[in-house]
């Protein structure tokens, strides 16, 4: 059977109705969203349904949209079906004040560290994760550096008195 983006989309709509939304195709990859409460149901369905078979989690990462009030953080899953050679992008949004999202690490071992990385940089709290602590940054850090509220240093700042950097 040849799997195509339309078949996946129809299959998902048939199963989940209006709970799956915002279907779009960019660069050949079908993307869709759902509410964060059903992320595990959807991932499990994509994994276990024989006609879909998205059993490989390629990538998991976060994105921060500070202007989307109430949906500032996005968790993006890139899934891959090897036998049909088709990729899929699925994302859930969460507010920055209440960042709980269910963990996918029971389904994919590979999600373990990728979720830790997403927690480390965006502060997404993965519920049920076996070992949710910082991975690349130091444990003592008290902020989530890839959020947009932390800009990189302004190159033109003049308050630094550091001759080593030629700004003195």
């Amino acid at each position, binding site marked *: 059977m040849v799997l195509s983006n339309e078949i996946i989309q129809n299959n998902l709509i048939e199963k989940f109705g209006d709970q799956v939304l915002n279907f779009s195709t960019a660069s050949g990859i079908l993307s869709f969203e759902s509410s964060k409460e059903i992320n595990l149901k959807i991932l499990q369905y994509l994994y276990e349904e024989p006609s879909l078979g998205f059993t490989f989690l390629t990538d998991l990462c976060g994105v921060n949209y500070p202007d989307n009030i109430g949906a500032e953080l996005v968790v993006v899953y890139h899934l891959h079906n090897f036998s049909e050679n088709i990729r899929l992008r699925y994302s859930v949004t969460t507010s920055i004040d209440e960042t709980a999202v269910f963990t996918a690490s029971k389904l994919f071992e590979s999600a373990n*560290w990728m979720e830790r990385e997403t927690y480390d940089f965006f502060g997404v709290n993965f519920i049920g994760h076996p070992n949710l602590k910082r991975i690349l940054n130091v444990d003592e850090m008290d902020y989530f550096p890839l959020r947009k509220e932390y800009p990189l240093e302004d190159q033109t700042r003049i308050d630094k008195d550091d001759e080593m950097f030629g700004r003195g």
Partner: protein
Amino acid sequence: MEHQTNITLPKGSIEKTTTTLNIGPTHPATHGVFQNIMEVDGERVVSTEQTVGYIHRAFEKLAERRPLYQITPITDRLNYCSSPINNMGWHITCERFLKLDLPKRVDYLRVIIMELARISDHLICNSIVGVDTGAYTGFLYVMQYRELIYEIYEEVCGSRLTTNIGRIGGFERNFTNTAFTKLEKFLDEYPKVLKEFENLFARNRIFMERTKGTGGISAERALNYGFTGPNLRAAGVDYDVRLQQPYSSYQDFDFKVPVGTTGDNYDRFLVRNAEMYESISIIKQAYQKIQEFKGTDAEVYHADVPEYYLPKKEDVYTKMEALIWHFKIIMGEIDLPKGQIYSAVEGGNGELGFYLVSDGGRTPFRLHFRRPCFIYYQAFEELIKGGMLSDAVVTLSSLNLIAGELDA
């Protein structure tokens, strides 16, 4: 001397029957900066906890303030054993995102560079596995051919390790005759050296005893752990990005995808070794295809995309249009289209992916690197649990962990 009574030991440390052993952050066995906190019972590994992040440099944050062409030097520093693949992977991501078409000759030149990089990457990994099993000779012997590969890079882009090779749309200059001469020398001499290198290990009794049956993983677990590249193929899954989602005209080449069965250290060694032969064959095919270009076609080394490809310096001084484009590119004044893309290439140790989100600004809104070794290093505990400590060291090097890629 006063008798000291106030020593407090951690709870349970007297009753404990295992030893805690730190391997790393800097240790000859790790070949990079990362730490393993191992719990060992005699020589057996009971458990291990990997600590990464010692050389984290916040590439993803840096990339949010840089125009596309300034991100290339960042990608050098991911897997620094095969920087050109990272550079090309990034260029290809940008070109796909910006919907640029490249001339075939550029694709083939890229293929040559990428396969040379793959050889140098696998060469390091396999010879280091040899070093860790006690055979130093192979490592020293093949180094001169990595040197030759680096000389070819040097001819093409001017640098050796962190190459920053190529530009969005092609190469910064055409390959010189010296580059091709060195490539010919490499194609002529290297296969024999590789054969000798293989003879040194592949049927060597000591090497086989050390690597067979250690650090093995089943195909199912490897997939669940997100393995890609030679490590996944050693477990028996024939997934190769070059074949599944061809980029840079890989569909024009005829090559095999070597697979193993048990996913152990020995299979990983053999898969990498076999891949080097395939890479040589791909380079030969590409070189042949390049020689078929005649006349002006043989001079093409970049696409005609003035918005993204820096003009020649002499044109900048003499032509108005070139000066304008030069200024716009250098000042980062070119807005990107809105949208997002995930694009992957087959890196030295797996699927190297770039997830680029653009909001229409001049820099990426978000750029995420899918680093293969960050993902498969999670499996390390499962690979070595219950085995000997000295096998864990071999497993560590045969996974080809590159600290720069782990930590981004």
